[in-house]
């Protein structure tokens, strides 16, 4: 009896120790990555970096202002493509897609699409837009990223709209509010913080993409003149600079990585904030 208890206590302790160690090991790459990027990137992080264009090799100064603007442009274009389709598809799935063959297919497609390697999405956008228009452009890059947003937004919207209790819908019907008004003005409004969370997470996800931009938005050393021009982006610029043989460019690549990381991190954090709010409302 006593033996059994000691045995149990010891297995208990061992398990706690093993799990704790695993958790600690899991944290190491994350923390070291953050620290390393911070230390390496901090050296060149200044106002010049954030506000000036790239300079030729050997000329000091220079930054990634156009790439930062480019990333923002690409995200905006992607949002215009991905969010309306994703959000409405998600609403459709949650409200009408209970036992519906078409909805099942949409869901399946979305799941497959979210597993498609991003470089493949890039090739598709290249074939659809770059080839017919005969040039690389922000538009093509944005559309490629938008394609990637659709499945993420669709599924998160579906889940969050489903979380709205049925009683809210019934209460709305009982007031003589029509079905579509109930969905758009009551249900979606109740879930809006949750949907916003999904939107932010999908933005954070695509903002860090490089592969689909390589042959769609391409790159540009100057301010873009419009969305039909090739456009620099933080990720592609970091990639270009990081593989260059020049010390200054490599340093800038680190700083670009740091800026990107901070951008994505802040989007993620605000997503967390909205999600917390949405949950307290749905309770």
């Amino acid at each position: 009896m006593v033996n059994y208890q000691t045995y149990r206590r010891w297995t208990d302790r061992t398990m706690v120790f093993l799990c704790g160690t695993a958790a600690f090991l899991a944290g190491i790459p994350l923390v070291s990555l953050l620290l390393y990027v911070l230390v390496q990137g901090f050296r060149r992080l200044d106002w010049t970096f954030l506000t000036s264009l790239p300079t030729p090799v050997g000329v000091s100064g220079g930054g990634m202002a156009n790439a930062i603007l480019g990333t923002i442009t690409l995200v905006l274009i992607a949002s215009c493509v991905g969010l309306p389709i994703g959000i409405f598809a998600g609403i459709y799935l949650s409200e009408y897609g209970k036992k519906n063959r078409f909805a099942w297919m949409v869901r399946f497609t979305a799941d497959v699409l979210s597993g498609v390697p991003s470089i493949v999405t890039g090739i598709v956008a290249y074939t659809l837009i770059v080839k017919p228009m005969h040039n690389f452009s922000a538009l093509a890059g944005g559309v490629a990223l938008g394609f990637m947003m659709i499945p993420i937004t669709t599924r998160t919207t579906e889940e969050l709209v489903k979380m709205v209790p049925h009683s809210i819908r019934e209460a709305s019907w009982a007031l003589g509010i029509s079905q579509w008004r109930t969905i758009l003005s009551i249900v979606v409004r109740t879930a809006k913080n949750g949907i916003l969370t999904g939107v932010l997470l999908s933005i954070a996800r695509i903002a860090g993409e490089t592969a689909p931009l390589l042959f769609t938005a391409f790159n540009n050393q100057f301010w873009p003149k419009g969305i039909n021009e090739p456009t620099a982006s933080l990720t592609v610029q970091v990639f270009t600079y990081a593989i260059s043989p020049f010390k200054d460019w490599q340093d800038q690549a680190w700083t670009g990585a740091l800026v990107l990381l901070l951008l994505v991190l802040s989007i993620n954090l605000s997503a967390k904030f909205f999600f917390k709010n949405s949950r307290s409302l749905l309770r």
Partner: protein
Amino acid sequence: MIDELAEKEKKERKPVEKEPKNEPRSDSRKIEVAHHEPDASVKKVKMKAEGVCAWFGTKQALFDVNIDINEKAVTAIIGPSGCGKSTLIRCFNRMHETVPGSRFAGDIFLEENSIFDPRMDPVAVRRRVGMVFQKPTPFPTLSIYDNVAVGLRLNGTRDKKTLDEVVEKSLRKAALWEEVKDSLQKAGAALSGGQQQRLCIARSLAVELEVLLMDEPCSALDPISTSKVEELIHELRQNYTIIIVTHNMQQAARVSQKTAFMLNGKLIEYDSTEKVFTNPANKLTEDYITGRFG
């Protein structure tokens, strides 16, 4: 506490009413019931259910229910859990048909018109026949003001002044105005349970309501909030027709003029509240209200 009192009340009342009940039960008693109803013929019938049957999938929940609901009166529906009270009142505003796989037979009239007439829009029916649920369901992301205004707004009323007026009037009618008039922009979900329930009542009153269905409106509320809602029901009876489902027999006796007793999907007895509680015609009713089952 309250239950104890109720028990006592019942025990005290029993000997008095026991006497006539020892007589053999027969149809002649039922005729007598009609005599005991002073204002049954005076009241206008607001809603009328004829041969109502309802199903969930293959399970039948209502069997041939016929009932006349008087205008500007409170009708209570009592009966044990699962007997079909909610199902019945959800037929009155066509909410039953929103349940997937549900079926309905029979007919229900709102004044002269069948609410199942193909020309009747269920949405329009629900504007005239509102509903308050067991659990208060304010719209969580809307302010108190918007919770009340939303029914009108989503049906096309945009004029700020009209909305302001309707919101104040509805909140006053729901006896909530004094408590919330300084915090109309606060979230509806921030109110107490009792206030939330009155907010839901106010919300129903803001549309062109004629009949208010209440499905156990007080069962989630504390005694004080309950008595407030009951007072409110008394007030509302002046202008609206009310059907209230309740598990609380004392409540039914306090607020209603007529009471319907249901069992296993059938309407067993329907009469003036006084009659049902003091001298029920049916043995089953008597057993239920004296607490022998249910």
